[in-house]
């Protein structure tokens, strides 16, 4: 059963994408969109239950373990909410002419092809398949980023495809090197399967694995948005259609992190955990530090959220770099918390931007007066992103911090704390200015139901995860931590 699901899962969005090419009607397309995402969501829950009962499963090049499950659950939750959000968002976007009614089917089909490639990256056991699927996400999402077809969108799309393709070639080189090391040990039975390489990992040559890991770190780190390879990220996140921004920030960069974690476990077994942790720590710190000034001076709302993703990917890398059970658990929890919260933030921002017709935060004033529910959700998302208790991000940031203190990384902790405090102030200043004050340039219209529903779902998960982590999910996270730490 679970084995069958492994190859059915990537097929669901692929078939949905093909089915979408047969129609031009917006209502049918939206129905297919939500339906396809709901099926993907339901099947993943079944798979999660099977894995919880019977441990990791694999078939051919695919494999699911608890580590993959964390990312897969995040992926399907966000895909479903993005589909729900798209219903209302699209109606508005078509009305004002941002999206052309006659080309909608290619948009929807691309979104689901994008989702399909991301599902494959999460399920891939074969490191070559992982790379191919990762490049597949670049190709599908590059078209989506430039979808609006105006000058800035095309510029962002070109920058994205060039920078991430450069990056990803480093990832392929690293994969080849790790494979060469494994083939040297395994002889003619050499495979690229992660689970097979893990079994011989302690005997791999540390020298070649070390170089391989650095290549992989730069390669998939580019895709994950770690500084200084993050150059594509703010542009792509700000220019893409809002649902795509949510997928990029919520899921795609997390898939790249999963790839990094897979190689981290190989490197830790081959050359000891200290080396991989040090590399992750350095990239994490650089990301947090580089993102801060850009967050403070930002005027474009979606760019602000983009730079904020750089910071949070940095925090995940820090958690992995501090290492140990606490740090890894915190990092994985942060992956989920940030994905949920950031998608909520993009949704709320997208709705506000549509209402005021501008992404400039100076133009968005007094949102609370014209759209009370949307404004509340935007404020909640901002509070959570800034790391305020009792929201979910506070919990995972605290865990990362505790891991750092436990291992005595005092300098890193000091830098991290200063940056988090500065960003806290900067973000709340920006959000407060948008939500409160005299409304200008926008009238009080009713808020569309479908975006609100999507946002309320995400906000509910966000609050729940801040108050308590459900026992079943805690179990998955614990077992996933064991996969990484051993």
């Amino acid at each position, binding site marked *: 059963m679970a084995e069958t699901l492994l190859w059915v899962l990537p097929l669901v969005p692929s078939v949905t994408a093909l089915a979408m090419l047969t129609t031009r009607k917006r209502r049918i397309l939206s129905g297919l969109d939500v339906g396809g995402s709901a099926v993907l969501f339901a099947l993943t829950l079944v798979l999660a239950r099977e894995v919880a009962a019977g441990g990791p499963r694999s078939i051919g090049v695919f494999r699911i373990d608890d580590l993959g499950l964390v990312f897969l659950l995040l992926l399907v939750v966000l895909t479903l909410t993005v589909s729900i959000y798209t219903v209302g968002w699209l109606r508005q976007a078509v009305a004002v002419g941002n999206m052309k009614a006659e080309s909608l089917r290619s948009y929807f089909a691309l979104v689901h092809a994008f989702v399909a490639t991301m599902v494959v990256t999460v399920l891939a056991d074969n490191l070559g398949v992982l790379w191919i699927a990762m490049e597949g996400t670049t190709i599908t999402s590059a078209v989506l980023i430039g979808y609006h077809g105006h000058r800035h969108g095309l510029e962002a799309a070109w920058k994205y495809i060039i920078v991430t393709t*450069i990056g990803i070639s480093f990832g392929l080189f690293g994969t080849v090197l790790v494979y*060469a090391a494994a083939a040297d040990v395994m002889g003619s039975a050499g495979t690229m399967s992660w689970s097979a390489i893990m079994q011989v990992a302690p005997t791999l040559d540390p020298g070649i694995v070390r170089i391989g890991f650095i290549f992989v770190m730069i390669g998939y780190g580019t895709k994950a948005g770690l500084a200084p390879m993050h150059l594509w990220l703010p542009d792509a996140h700000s220019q893409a259609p809002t649902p795509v921004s949510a997928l990029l920030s919520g899921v795609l960069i997390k898939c790249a992190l999963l790839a990094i974690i897979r190689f981290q476990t190989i490197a830790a077994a081959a050359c000891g955990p200290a080396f991989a942790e040090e590399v992750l720590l350095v990239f994490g710190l650089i990301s947090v530090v580089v993102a801060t000034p850009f967050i403070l001076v930002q005027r474009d709302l979606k760019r602000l959220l983009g730079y904020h993703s750089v910071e949070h990917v940095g925090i995940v890398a820090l958690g992995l770099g501090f290492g140990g059970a606490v740090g890894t658990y915190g990092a994985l929890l942060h992956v989920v918390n940030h994905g949920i919260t950031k998608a909520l933030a993009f949704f709320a921002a997208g709705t506000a931007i549509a209402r005021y017709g501008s992404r400039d935060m100076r133009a968005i004033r007094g949102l609370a007066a014209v759209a009370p529910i949307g404004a509340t959700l935007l404020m909640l998302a901002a509070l959570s992103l800034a790391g305020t208790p009792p929201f979910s991000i506070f919990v995972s940031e605290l865990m990362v911090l505790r891991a750092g203190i436990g291992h005595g990384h005092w300098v890193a902790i000091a830098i991290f704390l200063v940056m988090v405090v500065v960003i806290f102030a900067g973000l709340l200043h920006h959000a407060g200015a948008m939500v409160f004050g005299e409304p200008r340039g926008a009238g009080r219209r009713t808020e569309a139901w479908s975006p609100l529903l999507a946002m309320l779902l995400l906000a509910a998960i966000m609050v729940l995860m801040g108050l308590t982590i459900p026992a079943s999910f805690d179990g998955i996270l614990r077992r996933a931590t064991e996969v990484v730490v051993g």
Partner: protein
Amino acid sequence: MSAETVQAIIDDLGALLLFTMILIVAASQISRAIYAVAAQSFLIAIAGAVLATATGNVDLWVIAGVTLVVKATLLPWVLHWVVRRMNVRREVEPVIPVAATLALAVAVVVMSFHLSASLGTVRQAITGNALPVGIALTLSGVLVMATRKTALTQMVGLFASENGIFFTAMAVTQGMPLIIEIGVILDVILAALVMTIMVLRVRSTVDADIADLDRLKG
């Protein structure tokens, strides 16, 4: 063929590959860079055929054939077609002087050999000097992508970079699984296709070259 002969041939091909890379970095006209990258792919195909004969690995023949058809013929042809179609008058437009890029490329080559010399025993897993040459090609391909403004030159850099990875992957003693290599080539084709469409789209919708798009900052 004896192992020494194969190693000698691979090393010679590696030297020729580095030479084509210099031609790409130094090219002042886009069409010359395209010819150079086509020649480079052709050398990779020869390397594949040599390794296939030596190891008896049938997969390598397939990879050599696909490289010859796709990377040495089809992709350069597409690039030439775009050059004619867009009536490109602007050439490579370096961000920093070509001489400086060349100096950097030399540094990259030296560093690559130095790096893999430090590896010692693991080099048995990869034939001859394929590892340092592969690293050098990949990094200088990236260098070309980073230091040129025009879209087509960036694509040439991408192909050169992929060539470096393929050269190393072929020379891994056990060979790479065929299905993976085919998947990688397929991805390169798709990426090239999407990039070509973007270049044409930028020209047709906003009447500009990719090199003119520089408004997103901060």
